[in-house]
């Protein structure tokens, strides 16, 4: 029924300019959804790498959050949403680290992400990646794959998910795929070769051809089954390996509208094209267009390119790191350019570069060009000439 009392609560609250009704998505919703997405990937990482993964994520998160909180409190720079974003950066930085690093590596990663990435650069370089590439240099012997003659890393076996001990790892002689292989008794984890290491060695011609067969030794002997790379049962960073879960949470972010589909698509398509075209070294000469290689009636070239897409940091970079709202271009057009840059640079550095974490480097390099990309993809104002036809005043 009609209220007989005053029809207004208080006239003082009624001032305000149009628009009076706002959209429903606030920065809180965006950051919560992103944190949840990163958390799901982290959970899958914890399943594959055990309690050590949780330890690394929590240490990174504590240091990122704590250092940024100290800055906010001492410098009085509090602003809405800042600490939520720092929380997201902490989780993402944890996802980029392998689970078997010491706690001080995670602590330094988090501290650098907060101080250098967030406070000094103000977030325009992805802070989590600033921290990650810093510890990559600082703890080169520990984190790098390049020095080892045979790089290996531990992954929990299918029977010991979540609860297994990552240090109780052993090599197996005949690896048939993660689902089928069980480690020797009293061991929880398998020592496996990262596909990225095999791919890099292959591109540099270190995996010798078997007669006429160039790709077959790589696919047969050096790489795990592709399904392992999809579910993430390969060594690597906590959140880097689980391709399938990354794609699922990426689709959720796209569905919610908090990530533009153009960006991951541009990254992955350009990486696919680059890996298809760019030559690999084989027996002293370069083989262009590896995607068209067919050996023994099998499309080994295509398999090689698909391994490139699922190996290393590319998936995590494409869905969860490149799409960071602060450090990526504003428009979908710009994000396509940005994504193409990331995809091509990643594959290029992977094939010919010496830097590891090539996808993180590619994202940081493209972050530098975001301002330029934004300027060249600005929209035409209605009723004015196109930007390139406009006469400079």
């Amino acid at each position, binding site marked *: 029924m009609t209220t007989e009392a005053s029809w207004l609560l208080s006239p003082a609250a009624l001032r*305000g300019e149009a628009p*009076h009704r706002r959209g429903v998505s606030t*920065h809180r919703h965006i950051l919560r959804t992103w944190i949840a997405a990163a958390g799901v990937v982290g959970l899958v990482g914890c399943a594959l790498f055990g309690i050590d993964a949780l330890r690394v994520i929590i240490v990174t998160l504590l240091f990122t959050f704590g250092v940024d909180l100290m800055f906010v409190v001492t410098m009085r720079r509090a602003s809405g949403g800042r600490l939520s974003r720092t929380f997201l950066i902490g989780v993402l930085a944890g996802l980029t680290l392998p689970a078997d690093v010491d706690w001080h590596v995670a602590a330094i990663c988090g501290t650098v992400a907060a101080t250098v990435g967030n406070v000094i650069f103000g977030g325009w370089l992805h802070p989590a990646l600033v921290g990650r590439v810093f510890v990559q240099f600082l703890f080169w012997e520990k984190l790098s794959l390049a020095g080892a003659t045979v790089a290996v890393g531990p992954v929990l076996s299918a029977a010991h998910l979540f609860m297994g001990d990552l240090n109780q790892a052993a090599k197996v002689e005949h690896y048939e795929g993660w689902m089928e292989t069980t480690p020797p008794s009293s061991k929880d984890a398998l020592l496996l070769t990262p596909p990225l290491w095999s791919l890099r060695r292959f591109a540099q011609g270190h995996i010798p051809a078997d007669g006429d067969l160039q790709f077959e030794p790589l696919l047969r002997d050096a790489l795990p089954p592709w399904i392992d790379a999809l579910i993430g049962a390969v060594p690597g960073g906590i959140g880097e390996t689980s391709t399938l879960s990354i794609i699922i949470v990426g689709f959720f972010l796209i569905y919610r509208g908090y990530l533009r589909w153009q960006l991951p698509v541009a990254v992955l398509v350009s990486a696919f094209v680059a890996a298809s075209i760019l030559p690999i070294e084989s027996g002293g000469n370069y083989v262009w267009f590896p995607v068209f290689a067919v050996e023994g009636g099998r499309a080994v070239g295509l398999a090689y390119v698909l391994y490139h897409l699922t190996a290393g940091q590319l998936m995590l970079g494409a869905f969860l790191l490149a799409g960071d709202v602060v450090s990526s271009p504003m428009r979908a057009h710009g994000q396509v350019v940005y994504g193409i840059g990331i995809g091509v640079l990643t594959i290029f550095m992977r094939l010919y570069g010496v830097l590891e974490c090539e996808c993180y480097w590619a994202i940081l390099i493209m972050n530098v060009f975001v301002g330029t990309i934004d300027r060249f993809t600005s*929209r035409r104002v*209605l009723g004015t000439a196109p930007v390139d036809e406009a006469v400079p005043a």
Partner: protein
Amino acid sequence: MQMSLLTHLLGPRSAFDGGLYLPDRKASLARRPIQTLHPEGPLHVPLTVRRDLPTEPVVRPGDRVVLGQALSRAANDQAVGVHAPCAGTIEALKRVWTVEDGFLPGAILSPDGSNERTRQHQGWDNESIIVQLAENGVVCDTPRAPLHVVMREAISAGVTDLIVNAMETEPYLTADLRTLVEFPGRMIDTTCELADALGVSRAILAVPFRHRRVVRRLQSEAAGRYVEIVALSNPYPQCHPVMLLKAVLDREVAPGASIFTEDAIVLPMATVRRASDALLSDLPTTHALMTVAGDIVEHAGTYRVPIGTRLSDLAKRVGLVAPAAQVIYGGPLTGSAFGYEEAVVTPDSKALLLFGRADISRPVPCVRCGWCVEDCPVGIDPPALMRLETESVCSDQKRTSLRACIECGLCSHVCPSRLPLSETIVRNRIRFTGGDSATEGGTRH
């Protein structure tokens, strides 16, 4: 209208870059027919329609008037008089408060409940359409001026196309849709008459494709007439004249220019409805067709409200389930919030929205999500224009962008950081270009 099967199923594509399909919140509202509210208390009738249009009162306190009788007379040819919205006695002549213009000269009219009205002319008389519009006090909503003045300007500007704007893409508003549902033939007839008077070569009625049955009904009414029915996709702000011109005729108004420079005139549906009363029935404008809605309104719907009804009385008559925390005069994205008890209904009132909770939250720093840039219908960069607030110089390019803004409010609406983008852009435009919106050509306000 030829349509492929796909267009028939999915509807036409959005005709401009940007824009957003808002939840329209009209479903239950738009099913209720238009109801006429009869005056219950004294009416506070403003005697002019805009503050700068002078009129002279032709009644004195104590006079008895009947429905449709003139209360004031235009003092120059830019103004129009106001007519009595009911039969009754003039109590006093004193100022009344309107949301758009503040205080205006007004008359307090006590209704006596009789249905007595002025004698109507039978059939057509020899006066021109424009004189009939002026005598019956028809006003236009955008530009906000008497319709005969707008039409004279349009004729001297040599317009060749008339677009009648029935898009109404703002949430909650239903007046135009109900008009099209209830009086499709009258609207077509009036559009033809106005097109005749303007001497245009094309007359177009733009309606939302969403309401397919309305579109089909209008097409059958318009068969054989020279009014074209154009069914458009309806992202907000397709209802803005500049976007409508882009969608219908693919012409772009230069930033800061009047819409007449593109040889077209865009008349809102509400204006055509008032003109239909004046031209087809020789009835002066005495009522406003308003949507009264919001989450605390008990009997939300489309109402024909006598001019001079106090908005607070109107709110009480439709029934509130809770006291209002936010009262909006006009649409939710372009209207004005007010809280003054004395505000009254004017001829161009289109909606009264009452909400139990004000949508207010503190702004946080921009996160560069780019939603405002993607959704802006005219392609400007709202964050860059907002940053002008702390600067003292403005580049020519940014000045053009400031002029191009059509004040649709979409950037502020979508901003996840709740930044006051569109509000600040309006302030910066006044500061740096020293003027009103260019695209509205000074004809809106």
